[in-house]
């Protein structure tokens, strides 16, 4: 009985809110700063990246959603000697790491009282990291799938009910998988948000 009542209240809540804000869809430009093991491989920040987000309000503060993105890290490693056992190989290396995080998210938004509307979020899902090394005329590459999480904080800058800009920082972390150590990076997102 209690459950039915709760469900009813929730339903009423959602439908009444849906007129004001139902869902949001955002597109973000992403700047990636590699950390930890990722920065051991490539220690150069990259502006090649974007993130799509879709979020649905389940109450005035909380959204559930999905996000998917893509970032490219790149570095030219000057001529160096790589030694393994008795073998040594030297030359210039071109390194690439393409990441595809796909996460389920939950966000908490402050109510829209002023222009700024801060939020905090958490995501869990998977991250595909595609690593590629070019050396001489040779190339090796491999894709690794890892369990990934991200905490995120940021703010919407919302001049009207239907549209906003977003500035957010997330710490994206992939957990160690079979053949790749844990990956991590700081992701700065600048986006445009459509609120329906």
């Amino acid at each position, binding site marked *: 009985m209690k459950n039915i009542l709760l469900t009813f209240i929730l339903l009423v809540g959602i439908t009444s809110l849906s007129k004001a804000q139902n869902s949001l*869809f955002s597109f973000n*430009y992403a700047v990636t700063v590699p950390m930890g093991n990722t920065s051991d491989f490539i220690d150069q920040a990259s502006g*090649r990246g974007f993130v799509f987000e879709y979020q649905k309000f389940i109450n005035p503060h909380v959204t559930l959603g999905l996000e998917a993105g893509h970032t490219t890290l790149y570095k030219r490693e000057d001529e160096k000697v790589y030694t393994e056992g008795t073998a*040594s*190989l030297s030359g210039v290396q071109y390194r690439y790491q393409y990441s595809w995080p796909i996460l389920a998210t939950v966000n908490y938004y402050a109510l829209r009282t002023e222009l700024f509307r801060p939020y905090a979020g958490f995501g869990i899902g998977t991250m595909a990291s595609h690593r590629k090394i070019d050396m001489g*005329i*040779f190339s090796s590459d491999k894709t690794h799938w890892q369990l990934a999480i991200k905490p995120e904080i940021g703010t919407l800058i919302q001049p009207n009910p239907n549209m906003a800009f977003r500035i957010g920082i997330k710490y994206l972390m992939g957990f160690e998988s079979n053949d790749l150590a844990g990956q991590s990076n700081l992701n700065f997102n600048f986006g445009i948000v459509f609120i329906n």
Partner: protein
Amino acid sequence: MMRKIYQLLFSVLIASSILACKPDGAEYVDELDIVYTNYDAGFDFQSKGTYAIPDNVIKITDQFIDFNPGDEPEYVDQVYAVTILNSIKSNMDGLGYRQVDPSANPDLILLPSVTQTDQVFFYYDWWYWNWFYPGWGPGWGWYYPGYYPPQVSRVRTGTLMIQMTSPNDLDATDKIPVVWTGVINGLLEGNTNSISKRVNDSINQSFSQSPYLKK
């Protein structure tokens, strides 16, 4: 509904333009030069003092050949051979080895060979060297003690292989140990001067990344 479609289209457009700006790779041929070295960790280079080297660099044209004694294989153009041989000699001398005639019982014998190949390592018949290597006869050959050069694939390039052999350490089956191998690989692009310079730089690199050769 139309608005949502516009929003989506807008985002996809920007995303695809970001994806389109992929980072670059190598721009100059010398960035594609790589140097591979490997050696027998159990070999005592310090105890060796002399080496011999031919005055020609052989050109590998086929995997297997059927030479008669006295036949000679194809040689690399002297323009490049001189660069290769001088570079190897100056590195060996710099490390403290002394060049002697092949008939003077050298501790080490170096065999430089060149091929246009699609592999970093190539196999070739030891008979290529019968015209030079002292004492070689039927049933001889070489082997790699404890390691093996890699076989990787693709793209037509030039490869120079330097084999350092130890003629006085024959094993029970009359095989000669190749105690050090240097493999230099790069694209065959550019004029004589620039290729010579790259070859020289790469040979220097092969010795400098092999500090265990120093006496």
